[in-house]
């Protein structure tokens, strides 16, 4: 249960970290909070010759409202998001999904960027990023670039980032108007990875028609999934005419890589997913109607 030996690097800036990644190549891995990486190292499911610790780089920290979006530094801890009034106000889905992540002890170390870069399909922040069309800021020695969340999650624990690229931050769009938000998960124990879950955002017009809907799915594929067909089905319709249960069914209808495990077969997960979507949809719409 002890990690294999590695060389430790603690660059002071994001540029230095990117330079280190470029120099060290495939043998290096970024270490932030370590709440996913260190277990993999301890179990020796992963071995790296070099770890580049970005956890203390000041430029990767912070939660800031910038024009039209909320910027969250990659090394910002989940606990910081949990405490942030700015996050709760600007991107409620980000704030409300946070208590579902692990436990207090995990959230005090785990980072937003770590969760997004680890890209676990059962994790909360990847689903939120995908549902809200977040943009991921990455940096390498070739310069900075921005990746849309829709292009970022490319496979199981796999992202569009090159091995020498560092995740610097994420921009989450800020919605305004009559909005409602909800997160629903089913897990055997609180803090476990959910069997299935859903994150939902909805904006209603003054006429109670759905102006926009965002539905992210947790644990229902090899990547976080977005229920685009269900979103399209809801858009423009009077919210009172939308049957939440039917919408839940629509959200899981097109999924083709629902995992099966000890918690049950894929069909069970799919059913749980539909229920999570319908519950989250109902809750989010209720909030939006009162707004």
């Amino acid at each position, binding site marked *: 249960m002890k990690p294999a030996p590695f*060389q430790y690097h603690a660059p002071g800036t994001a540029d230095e970290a990117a330079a280190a990644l470029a120099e060290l190549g495939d043998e290096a891995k970024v270490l932030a909070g*370590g*709440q996913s990486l*260190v*277990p993999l190292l301890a179990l020796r499911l992963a071995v790296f010759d070099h770890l580049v610790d970005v956890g203390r780089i000041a430029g990767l920290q912070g939660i800031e409202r910038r024009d039209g979006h909320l910027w969250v530094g990659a090394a910002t801890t989940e606990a910081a998001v949990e405490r942030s009034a700015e996050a709760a106000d600007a991107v409620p889905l980000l704030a409300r999904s946070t208590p579902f992540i*692990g*436990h207090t002890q995990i959230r005090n170390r785990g980072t937003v960027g770590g969760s997004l870069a680890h890209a676990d399909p059962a994790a909360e922040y990847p689903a939120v990023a995908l549902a809200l069309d977040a943009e991921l800021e990455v940096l390498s020695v070739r310069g900075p670039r921005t990746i849309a969340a829709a292009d970022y999650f490319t496979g199981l624990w796999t992202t569009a980032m090159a091995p020498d690229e560092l995740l610097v931050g994420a921009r989450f769009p800020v919605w305004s108007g009559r909005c409602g938000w909800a997160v629903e998960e089913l897990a055997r124990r609180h803090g476990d990875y959910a069997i299935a879950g859903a994150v939902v955002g909805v904006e209603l017009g003054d006429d109670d028609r759905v102006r926009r809907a965002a539905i992210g799915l947790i644990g229902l594929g090899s990547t976080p999934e977005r229920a685009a067909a269900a979103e399209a089905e809801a858009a423009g319709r009077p919210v009172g005419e939308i049957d939440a249960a039917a919408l839940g069914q629509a959200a899981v209808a097109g999924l083709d890589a629902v995992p099966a495990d000890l918690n049950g077969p894929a069909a069970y997960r799919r059913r749980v997913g539909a229920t999570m979507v319908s519950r989250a949809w109902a809750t989010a719409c209720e909030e939006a109607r009162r707004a």
Partner: protein
Amino acid sequence: MHEVPVEIVVNGRAHRAEVEPRLTLADFLRERCGLTGTHLGCEHGVCGACTVLVDGQPVRSCLQFAVQARGAEVTTVEALAAPDGELSPVQAAFRDAHGLQCGFCTPGFVVTVTAFLRDHPDPSDAEIRDALSGNLCRCTGYQGIVAAVRLAATSVDVSGRLPTRNVHGMVSPAPPPPS
């Protein structure tokens, strides 16, 4: 392998050492500081037995390398009791409310609960259970632990000082609120 210098303040005392980067904070505390109260159960972040406070916040010390804690202030279970050995309110409540049996998980629980009650002095039962969810106990079935947290919460008076309590009293299902 290449060793690196670290300096970590543990329970108010600075500890300097040359360590391998792969040395976890938990092993640093146990092997380099001789503080074996921090227990290692699973060593991959599941059980919570190794919970310590880093800069006041509870973390799993098996999921943090000692080098990552350079310059940090770490508080372990050894710092909770008074210098004369008198148990802290949380420790006393665990004893009084049968919040432990074999005791292996207990250091992680009492450290977690100490920070939790600092931040949530009047928790609901749901908040208590949520706060305990990151720590596993294989003996008690948790009921005594939940009762211990309730007892500890009621034992701290509003000024933060500790009233004397009947240390032999088994906690009742609903202990009286502080006056």
